[in-house]
């Protein structure tokens, strides 16, 4: 057991820190601290440029295998990258889905052609993806999807609707879980399709959230098409492939999110000082708890994402465990954030509905315990797969 950073890790840290200091300046200076919860639409065009800039410097796909253009950065190094990125105030990323969800799925299940076609473009920051999973009738019960795709010559023809699709309006491609087979099993009917977004058969409608902003969208497929080769794995294998993406979503990719949390907590503490709420013992206690739990959240992520450490025979489930730690934590932070504002929390900064950062944090964090697998689903997964409790 050795919890020290190696010399290589320290060098890597210096490298990232230096690059951020040299590059988050000039034309990109307006991006510092931009794009957090409830502000996903801020400076999108400049952030698209920033993705290409990160890509050209080799900072996308650092965790990918070298055979697919990555640096094979260790888990620790990926943590270090996220820490230094967050410390420098790097803007919220737009390539999260592309780099951390779709790319690992292609690496695991994609054909050489698919990898060759998409991975270099994702690495360059030139290709963005959105995720076509949930539907109005299929949220927690993802297998209940009804979007259909049928073979039509050398194409798939897709009809249906996806919902809660982040970044659909700027994405180039979408990976779509669709029903393609006619077998008996619910799961065995599904296929994982890769679909270009900019086509006549796809319509995007933003969903207005309770924050007043629209991060999520509905995506309608009306005879949308994609080449017959744009299926990952075999037709009918889509469930297995989709599950892999979900597991990745709940793993290492949550790290950059967690690291922004310290900045938010600092903002809450600063606000508490300004309003005097910090002198209220109950507020002080909540701050101390939030801070302690954030330390432990990071410790738990580091320990569990490194794989089983031999301290228990039980199946460790880092994804569900970490989601059940960070999502409720973040929601409580949102509650604390608005509580320290006192009456100021009841008024908006400006018409029509300009809310402050802390107000947006309060509203937006309601979603954290719902998306990416609700808290209720995560508990059921831990109970069944982790503890072995009977169905």
């Amino acid at each position, binding site marked *: 057991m*050795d919890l020290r950073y190696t010399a290589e890790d320290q060098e890597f840290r210096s490298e990232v820190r230096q690059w951020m200091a040299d590059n988050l300046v000039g034309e990109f200076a307006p991006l510092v601290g931009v794009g957090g919860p409830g502000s996903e639409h801020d400076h999108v065009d400049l952030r698209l440029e920033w993705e290409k800039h990160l890509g050209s410097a080799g900072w996308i796909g650092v965790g990918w295998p070298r055979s697919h253009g990555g640096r094979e950065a260790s888990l620790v190094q990926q943590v270090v990258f996220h820490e230094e990125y967050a410390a420098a105030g790097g803007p919220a990323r737009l390539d999260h889905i592309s780099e951390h969800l779709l790319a690992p799925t292609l690496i695991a299940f994609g054909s050489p052609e698919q990898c060759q076609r998409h991975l270099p473009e994702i690495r360059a920051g030139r290709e963005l993806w959105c995720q076509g999973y949930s539907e109005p009738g299929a949220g927690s019960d993802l297998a209940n999807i009804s979007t259909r795709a049928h073979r039509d010559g050398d194409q798939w023809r897709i009809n249906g609707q996806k919902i809660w699709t982040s970044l659909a309006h700027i994405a180039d491609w979408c990976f779509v879980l669709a029903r393609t087979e006619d077998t008996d099993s619910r799961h065995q009917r599904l296929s994982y399709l890769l679909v270009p977004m900019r086509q006549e058969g796809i319509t995007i409608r933003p969903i207005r959230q309770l924050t007043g902003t629209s991060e999520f969208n509905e995506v309608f497929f009306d005879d949308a098409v994609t080449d017959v080769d744009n299926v990952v794995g075999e037709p009918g294998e889509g469930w297995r492939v989709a599950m892999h993406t979900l597991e990745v979503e709940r793993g290492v990719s949550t790290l950059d999110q967690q690291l922004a949390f310290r900045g938010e907590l600092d903002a809450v*503490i600063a606000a508490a000082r300004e309003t005097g709420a910090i002198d209220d013992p109950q507020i002080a206690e909540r701050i*101390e708890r939030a801070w*302690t739990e954030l330390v432990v959240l990071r410790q738990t992520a*580091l320990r569990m994402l*490194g794989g089983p450490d*031999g301290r228990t025979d039980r199946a460790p489930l880092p994804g569900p465990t970490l989601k059940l730690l960070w999502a409720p934590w973040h929601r409580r932070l949102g509650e604390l954030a608005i509580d320290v504002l006192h009456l100021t929390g009841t008024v908006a900064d400006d018409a029509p509905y300009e809310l402050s950062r802390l107000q947006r944090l309060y509203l937006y964090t309601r979603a954290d315990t719902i998306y990416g697998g609700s808290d209720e689903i995560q*508990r059921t997964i*831990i109970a069944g797969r982790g*503890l072995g409790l009977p169905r």
Partner: protein
Amino acid sequence: MDYSLTSEQRDLRDAVRELVADRLPSDRVLAVMGESGNDRETWDLLADDMGLAGLLLPESVGGAAATHVESGLVLRELGAAVAPLPFLSHTVTAGVLARALPDAPEHCSVAEALTTAAERITAGATTGVGLDASVRAETTGAECRLDGVVEHVIDGPGADLFLLVSCEPTTETYLVDADQPGVRVEPRMTLDQTRRQARLDLTGAVATPVRAVDQPIGGWAGDLLRIALAAESVGATRALLALTVEYLTVREQFGRPIGSFQALQHRCADLAVAVEAAESAVVHAEWAASHDYGDVPVLAPIAAATAVEAFRDTAAEAIQLHGGIGFTWEHAAHLYFKRAKSTELILGGATRARRTAARRAGVLTG
């Protein structure tokens, strides 16, 4: 970063686990705690036969020079059985001595006294620990004598040595030999009968002051106690959760195992998450205590807060999820429940521990 246990560490853990499974099943714990509260025979096996008495102490006094990672593994296994053994005080005292010994100036009477104490501990001498000891010290030349009453000495009854930490006017740590006229030991019955306490009455008791160069050793003793209790709590929590899950799997009502009811599943899932968080906090604190002292003042109280809440919540749920039998003397649930609450009270509660950590890290003051 590598969190995995070495094969030696796994062997150590497995050996203690086997010993405890063999000698301290819960009905035996119930029997022992109704008598002396201290299973001397098992202690001798652990301390002498397995050589764990000297785990933390340097080789110069016959110790194994192991770290808090190793002692943490032992603590977890003992915690899992709510073992009526004085290993907790032992490991805190040994940890304090291990820190003080290298810095004690050579060839002085204090160094000699500390070395002698360390050698006795390596040979299996037992200790009792009393923090918040309000005693008055009188130092004449090389001799230090204590007067006062220490209400709560953990593992005090039958101990050969006492480690006392007083905080007024400054933090001072003392080693006191039990076998001397100036020391009167009054055993106290405890809520958690597996961990007894004693009241000490000191009248001109000869004491050896314990100091380390770089930080008040009293703070170190307090933090070692936090880490040790946290480690023990994690072991207890894991064992109790497994016991409870097992029960939910076999107990049937309404034609199905009650573990298939979602409400109970979800509550168990929350406990499973809490114990992983606690484990993570304790692992980091143990590592810091073994390699990088600087972080310990913050990481120790964080580990304590996290572990004690996970333990207390699991112990409470264990009684509830076992239904009526969880409320009986015969069932092991109350052993954990009482150990969890006593641990919480000894630590001063999770809220205060978080406050201590946050204060030391300057969270509110910036």
